């Protein structure tokens, strides 16, 4: 799980262009939205694309994203349970 969490941090930094943010700066248990990284709605869409592109997980229900993207740890748990690649 730790390996996946680190991979996710690096992927999020890359796809969301989080300049000057390092993996160790991100608290994997902190909320991704509303505080901390200061992500916006376009970032949420990028995360949905990331889930499909890298892990073969298609989020058809936008409301599902609210639960899945609560934190990186929750994302990692969801990916582990649902990934197809």
């Amino acid at each position, binding site marked *: 799980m730790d390996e996946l969490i680190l991979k996710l941090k690096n992927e999020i930094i890359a*796809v*969301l*262009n*989080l*300049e*000057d943010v390092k993996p160790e700066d991100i608290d994997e248990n902190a909320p991704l939205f509303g505080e901390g990284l*200061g992500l916006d709605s*376009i*970032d949420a*869409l*990028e995360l949905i*694309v990331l889930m*499909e*592109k890298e892990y073969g997980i298609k989020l058809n229900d936008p409301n599902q994203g609210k639960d899945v993207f609560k934190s990186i740890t929750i994302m990692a748990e969801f990916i582990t349970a649902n990934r197809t690649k």
Partner: protein
Amino acid sequence: MKINNIIRHSFNNSSEITELYRSLKIDYPKFFKMDGLSKLGLLASELILKGTENRFSPREDVAIICFNSVSSLDIDTLYQESIQNKDNYFPSPSLFVYTLPNIVNGEIAIRNKFFGESFFYICKIFDARQVIDTVRKTFHDTTITSVLAAWIEYSEEKKEVFMMWIENDNDVMELTEEQINKLYIDY
């Protein structure tokens, strides 16, 4: 009409734009998510507006008028390339949102809380007459007291910005096409 400030910059590559941004020590992480055109416009607006009194106080009397010849072709091409492969089809939302030239106006407006009129014109070459005419027409709306007018060209070959802060001052002599052309060439 009176020109209060002018910025004219050319860059050889996108890294130079980022380097100048960093040197200004601006804390605005959204900059890094923007396309080249928006980065160039936002950076020029930072240079022109830094030190302005009551910066970031909401203003409904400021209009933003931009021009260029290439629209948002740079990011349009990147986006097109990202959706070219039908077997690896993952359109990027963050690229897509910049596939309109006037997004740069929006970025400047959001950053500075400018709520006045906003236009983006695409023309073949820099046209001082069109700049003056458009600014003058904008001042017909008497709620507008200042215009941020810019030629912002961002392409593979050319990255240049010429931005002016123009104020409506009826006591001052009218700007002429020759003056604007001279400023564009000299700066």
